[in-house]
């Protein structure tokens, strides 16, 4: 897990809720899956930007996962604007799994 951020404290706070956002098919949370790439916080305008990926560009649950992520960040930062943006650069890979995620998947 190596999430880029401009505010470590806010990032850790956000992660507490993001640990409860699951990929419904895999049954693992998006943080341990390594789907969250970047979290940026703008305390002046009260905005949070999450840049994340999916295990595959063709993920049938992609829409649900990004909606869940959006709702999670909205819960962590009530009243803040939330942007969840998808990127596939770099594409998700096994190396992005946390040790807990690897153990969960039987690696």
């Amino acid at each position, binding site marked *: 897990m190596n999430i880029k951020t401009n505010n470590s404290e806010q990032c850790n706070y956000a992660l507490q809720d993001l640990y*409860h*956002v699951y990929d*419904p*098919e*895999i*049954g693992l949370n998006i943080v341990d899956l390594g789907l969250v*790439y*970047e979290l940026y916080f703008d305390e002046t305008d009260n905005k949070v930007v999450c*840049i994340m990926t999916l*295990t*595959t*560009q*063709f*993920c*049938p*649950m*992609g*829409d*649900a*996962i*990004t*909606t*869940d992520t959006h*709702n*999670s960040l909205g*819960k962590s930062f009530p009243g803040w604007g939330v942007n969840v*943006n*998808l*990127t*596939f*650069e*770099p594409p998700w*890979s*096994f190396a992005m*799994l946390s040790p807990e995620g690897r153990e969960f*998947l*039987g*690696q």
Partner: protein
Amino acid sequence: MSPLIGGLQKTTNYKVVLPFYSYASLGFLLGTILLLFSTEAVGAHYFNPKTLAITHTMALAWGTMIIFGASHQLLPVLVEGKLDSDRLAYLTFGFSAVGIPLLVYGFYVFDMGWPMQIGAVLVNIGVICYLANVLGSSFKSKHRNVHAWYVITATLWLFATTFFGLLLVLNFRTPILSRNSVDYLSIHAHLGIVGWFVFMVVGVGSRLIPMFLISKYTNDGILWLVFALLNIALISFMVLYLMAVPTMLFYIPVIMGLTAILLFGRHCYKAYQGRIRKSVDQQVKTSLISVVQMLLPFVALILALTFLPQGQFPRIAMIYGFCIFFGWITAIILGMTFKTMPFIIWNKVYHNKAHKGKTPAPKEIFNDRVYRIMWYSYLVGFIIFILGIIILNQLILKTGALALLIAAILYVYNVAVTAGHKAKQT
């Protein structure tokens, strides 16, 4: 910051997809009922009313309708765009849903009159609507990967199959072709089997199987090679057949087709080896077994090329057809139904409930225990029925058909359970 790409493709409306799944499940049930009450047809020539009725039930009401449904859902994923038209999808369903029973009824009573002719026309209109939707969706998108080309090609071959089928139906009453319709059956059958079913299964399976295994293995080069081999095999088979060449030459398309299937099998095996999640669920296992089952028709085909020209063992043609329609086509549908349909229902029921409580996983939407019983009943029925064809024993044939009917009933039950799922949240 990382370069961003646009958001996700919008998924197809579940209302478009679910009627196809429901209809296909009833088609499977009807196919197994017809099989149970038509086992005496096994000893006859394959051109007989009941065999034709069963074959068209399995090919159209079962295989084609569920592929129509699944592909309306998957096409946006494959072309990285959206489905061109929901209306065309509804029309595809409407024309096909009415046309298929008329066609099957015509075969069953062996009346080449108006029900069969109108049925064939309606099926063709349904296929044209589907073709328009596939082409519209594909060419309005800027991205067409190898999987999309498989779907486009399969749909063109499907239209060739159904249009040729219509000509054959009309040719029974009014000669419009140079030969008797029966002489063209092999071409019509292989246009559908290879051109439609094999292309669709390879094109979509090569995307879905690695995705469901969470495998990073991809090899577009191999998939393009398979694409070329299948097209050349199919075209060369038709040319050789029309030229009435010696039997030995038919090994050429058979070997090309076999090579293509082995390469597809290798692709699936590599994806399996490269999977990130070690545990593999029963539905994906079912689909992987169906890939192995694709080899059985080749065994039957090679035996047919060896024995049929000498008039020996005519039932090998029955085994060939059974291994296709009740074999790998049915097996891959049994597996993929309960991988794709739970996602559709999950997205329908829980999409807007994300992070508002714990939601069940898609695999918890259907009854896994019933699925397993269905799968074993299917496997037992499939093996027993083949044994029954080989030794031509009615009791064994009825036993095999009964096991397949039980599998179909359990399949319909699980489709109904999945379709009727309501939100459960804690």
